[in-house]
């Protein structure tokens, strides 16, 4: 097995409190980022449609054309779907570009699927935001390394405090008429 995100910070961000382990039968939703194709070509296209000196400037792609370009290979789609179905995942939704797959599983199934993961519930922030996250790293079967970039919903916490500040009223500088 391998760890897709060994360098992802997993320490509890300030303002969050653990409410303990999640119930094994609880349902949770995980997002699988599937390996895309033709990223070199994508990079070229970004440059040609954004450079005013290029003959292709402003000739943007439609979502369907982007999908055509980056869509994961059928081997990737097949391998990941087979893996998820075998683990009991259900209600899987893809996106037009097919490079993300969001599925529902029980906590128990998810912890079996993503070895090492352990889901806890946390609460934080002024609006008492609640999340399910894993403080421990997850690992995937080696066979999936060519097919999955990362799994969303395990480690990253949402922001809970705005960076906007209400500053004290500035003191008048110089004589204000």
């Amino acid at each position, binding site marked *: 097995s391998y760890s*897709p*995100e*060994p*360098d*992802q*910070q997993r320490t509890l961000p300030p303002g969050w409190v653990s409410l303990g382990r999640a119930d094994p039968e609880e349902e949770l*939703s995980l*997002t699988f*980022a599937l390996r895309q194709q033709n*990223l070199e070509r*994508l*990079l070229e*296209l*970004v*440059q040609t*449609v*954004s*450079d*005013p*000196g290029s003959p292709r400037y*402003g*000739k*943007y*792609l*439609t*979502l369907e054309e982007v999908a055509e370009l*980056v869509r994961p290979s059928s081997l990737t789609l097949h391998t990941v779907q087979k893996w998820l179905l075998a683990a009991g995942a259900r209600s899987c939704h893809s*996106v*037009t570009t097919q*490079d*993300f797959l969001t599925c529902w599983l029980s906590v128990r199934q998810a912890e079996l699927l993503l070895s090492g993961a352990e*889901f806890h*519930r946390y609460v934080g*922030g002024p*609006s008492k935001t*609640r*999340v*399910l996250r894993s403080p421990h790293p997850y690992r995937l079967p080696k066979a999936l390394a060519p097919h999955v*970039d*990362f799994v*969303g*919903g395990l480690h*990253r916490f*949402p*922001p*809970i*405090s*705005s*960076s*906007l*500040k*209400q*500053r*004290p*009223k500035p003191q*008048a*500088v*110089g004589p*204000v*008429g």
Partner: protein
Amino acid sequence: LHLGVTPFVIRKRYNLTAQDVGSGTTNNSQACAQFLEQYFHDSDLAKFMRIFGQSFPHQASVARVVGKQGRGHAGIEASLDVEYLMSAGANISTWVYSSSGRHESQEPFLQWLLLLSNQSVLPHVHTISYGDDEDSLSSTYIQRVNTELMKAATRGLTLLFASGDSGAGCWSVSGSHQFRPSFPASSPYVTTVGGTSFQNPFRITNEVVDYISGGGFSNVFPRPSYQEKAVTQFLSSSPHLPPSSYFNASGRAYPDLAALSDGYWVVSNGMPIPWVSGTSASTPVFGGILSLINEHRILSGRPPLGFLNPRLYQQRGAGLFDVTRGCHASCLNEEVQGEGFCSGPGWDPVTGWGTPNFPALLKTLINP
């Protein structure tokens, strides 16, 4: 003379007349996204426009809310985003993206990226108040999100990210201090917006650096070719460079642009609130102004601006007020004493190329 930033102050400073509004006849549109699970209330926007929007034609309600809008407490960030995006980009169809109501195990920003990959029709300009320290994210995640931003750029979407409110940032790496870049602000495929203040807080005068304005150099992304010349020039001419051990001089440098970020009036939960500050304010202001430029482009049969940076750096700040005074915050230690980078002539890693002078910016961006 003024007592805080309002739409009147913004439109006056950036030379927007009452005629500089959407025509209401095009498919032009704009959107703002924040991920604080805050609610936005239409009634706040209506009240805001009643108080501050009398001097220009405007829409007093959003065209679409993506995500659930509960009856919860409105948040200042959600209110401010919409109120100033619709004041600068007045009379232009506006969407609000809200991540409230997502499931506990989902990541709000990732859900927004999935939305981009699943909707054929999207607004041309998106202003996003979100950022994480680069070092807190896995390289796999950062690279994949960067690819998602490239996908948006090929579709002609203009993504404006707030540069952050911690100046250059600061953290300790094996015992010594370094500046702390923020992502997605540091992505080479977005346009990042910093913050300024009025030199005299009660007058509409020239702008200086707002010390909170996020900026610096990525530790993950090398410098893209489009900004090589401008950044090299800054590094070779700035009289105030911090010690080189504090930053990665070969990284993608940001921000690219700036706007006022200090002392805003906002209406939230029915209350007018003064002196609100942050680059979450400057970003929708610049976004609204780019939407107005898109309006003129669409009316003259041209495509929307799309990913702006290559063109912005080619034009070397034409159409922008250059901000050349002030420095942003950083590490509070003997060595740098709280000072990060300082602004200077041309591009700098505090205010980018500067703040919008609408008629001049329109002239430089209307063709081709």
